[in-house]
């Protein structure tokens, strides 16, 4: 903290904002603000984890009573919650896979090729991200229930399929945007080189393009999975009466009871995603060093 290298100090002074005397106070102020900001971000998450160790006396896990490991010993005690989580995991996995494939190809098309109306297509891709979810949910419900809109005389039964379709829809946009940003600097002459070396388009994609843009695609997949698994608003509209995803189930239950298993399962999801992110950044950093990217 106290050791400031001459160059670092020189840079600060030359930037003209902080003198060496005021530097100390400035640094403390900045650190204080940073700690406050992080607290603000992480307090709710901390509460979730902490209350997974609570032993509430009533039906609602809202007041700290007593520390216990019971909830973690029996995380799957609430069958309704477990069913809902299992459904959410399946939907998110399938939706993210489909959306990742579709969105990746859209992103490649948008970056690689200049075509007529490419600007308009880009606009259409962003549109679902900017539309309020409640509007998307309501209009998807109409789409599924109106018997003539999609298939003649066909009404969709609300449930697994309708949720899946809705999730794929909004995930495609996120995937396309993420992958597009990641492949903007891609050197497309590598594809020329592969074809020059006798690789047809499919082999060129599998052996050269895909391995190089895979980190971007994985990032898009994880984002897509995270968005899908905790989506409430759109899902609430299109899930129907008997199909409950994890968030919808918790919402429904919260009026009657909030068992601490909610916190346990939520903490598990949290630790799971933190682990995936940590692995991702370690592997990514190694790969970048290795390839000199």
């Amino acid at each position: 903290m106290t050791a400031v290298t001459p160059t670092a100090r020189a840079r600060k002074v030359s930037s003209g904002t902080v003198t060496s005397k005021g530097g100390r106070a400035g640094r403390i102020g900045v650190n204080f603000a940073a700690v406050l900001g992080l607290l603000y971000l992480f307090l709710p998450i901390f509460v979730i984890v902490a209350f997974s160790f609570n032993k509430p006396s009533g039906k609602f896990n809202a007041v700290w009573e007593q520390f216990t490991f019971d909830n973690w010993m029996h995380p799957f005690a609430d069958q309704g919650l477990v069913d809902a989580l299992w459904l959410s995991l399946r939907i998110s996995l399938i939706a993210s896979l489909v959306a990742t494939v579709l969105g990746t190809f859209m992103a490649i098309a948008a970056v690689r090729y200049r075509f007529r109306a490419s600007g308009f297509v880009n606009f259409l891709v962003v549109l679902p991200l900017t539309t309020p979810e409640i509007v998307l949910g309501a209009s998807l419900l109409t789409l599924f229930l109106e018997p003539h809109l999609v298939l003649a005389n066909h009404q969709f039964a609300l449930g697994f399929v309708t949720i899946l379709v809705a999730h794929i829809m909004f995930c495609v946009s996120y995937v396309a945007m993420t992958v597009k940003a990641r492949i903007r600097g891609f050197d497309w002459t590598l594809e020329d080189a592969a074809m020059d070396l006798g690789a047809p388009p499919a082999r060129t994609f599998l052996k050269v393009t895909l391995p190089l843009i895979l980190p971007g695609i994985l990032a898009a997949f994880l984002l897509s999975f995270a968005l899908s698994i905790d989506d409430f608003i759109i899902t609430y509209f299109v899930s129907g009466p008997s199909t409950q995803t994890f968030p919808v189930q918790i919402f429904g239950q919260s009026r009657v009871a909030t068992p601490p298993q909610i916190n346990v399962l939520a903490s598990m999801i949290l630790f799971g995603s933190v682990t995936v992110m940590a692995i991702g950044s370690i592997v990514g950093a190694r790969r970048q060093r290795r390839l000199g990217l």
Partner: protein
Amino acid sequence: MTDETVIAIEHVTKRFGAFVAVDDADFGIRRGEFFSMLGPSGCGKTTTLRMIAGFEQPSEGAIRLVGEDVSRVPPYKRNVNTVFQQYALFPHLSVSANVAFGLQSKKVPKADIARRVDEMLAVVRLADFGARKPAQLSGGQQQRVALARALVNYPSALLLDEPLGALDLKLRQTMQLELKRIQREVGITFVFVTHDQEEALTMSDRIAVMNEGRVEQIGTPEEIYHQPASEFVAGFIGMANLLPATMENVDGARATAVLPDGTAVSAAAVEGLTRGDPATFMIRPERMQLQVGTSEGISAEVVDLVFQGPLIRFELKTAQGCPIVAHVGPDENLPLLRPGDRVQITWDADGGRLLRRHEQMAASTAVPN
């Protein structure tokens, strides 16, 4: 002779919208030769190369590879390979895997692939680097991997798109000789694109000089340098003094013309130029001699002189104001000259050349390289 041609460019024109990138190119590239396409940027040399590789298709005309019309054949089905300007090595693959890529695409047996990759890495002197990633190599080494990756496929021709452009001067000169050595060793036709005339002169068996989409001249480096076919070629390759002249007399293979100051010059006749036609008299700086106290040759005034070690570079001006550059060696018996002195410029009978006058040509130009 026809079976010797590996690549035939037959009246090929390439348009991008209204822009004509290549205008009726028509020439052949012979088996085993080092052929360069030389010209300023935008002259159509890279477009021609990309058409041979298959990345572009000709708007008109045909490209034949060993006799077969490949104008509409995609790049992955053509037996030519390219060394790209920035090498385009696959960053996620090792050096060996980069070199093996083409053979794997062609489903060559594994044992053969390993043997050929090792052989080719030895040819480019990178035998111990197979396990490295491209990012762990220097620019010159990456360049040689790109060469090996292309050559290992035994292509009918190797296409090189300004491959030395990204290297520094010293490395570039080393690689020029290295390229020439490798070409002799593997005996494969090299088609080399460059804007660097020195590079083309150093390495090529034949050079096609291109300008604004047209092939201006094809010939050996000596022919291109000593017998340029146009003002553009004369000015682009080396240094040339271009003086306006008027055709006077044509007598068989020789012709005479008159410079603006009345000096009569004699050179090889040019087809289609007859008495009274405007022409350009071209003479290289090193073909000139300077003399004092005679009335022979062109009279000029010394504007500046620069000592450059092996030669002295004189900047001169004729009475009409035409700038002339002359290089004078150390053995010339010259009195000490200063700016403002008057000298006579002379040359050997075959030192100069008459050229067709280009319409847009200014009075006279000495074009530095």
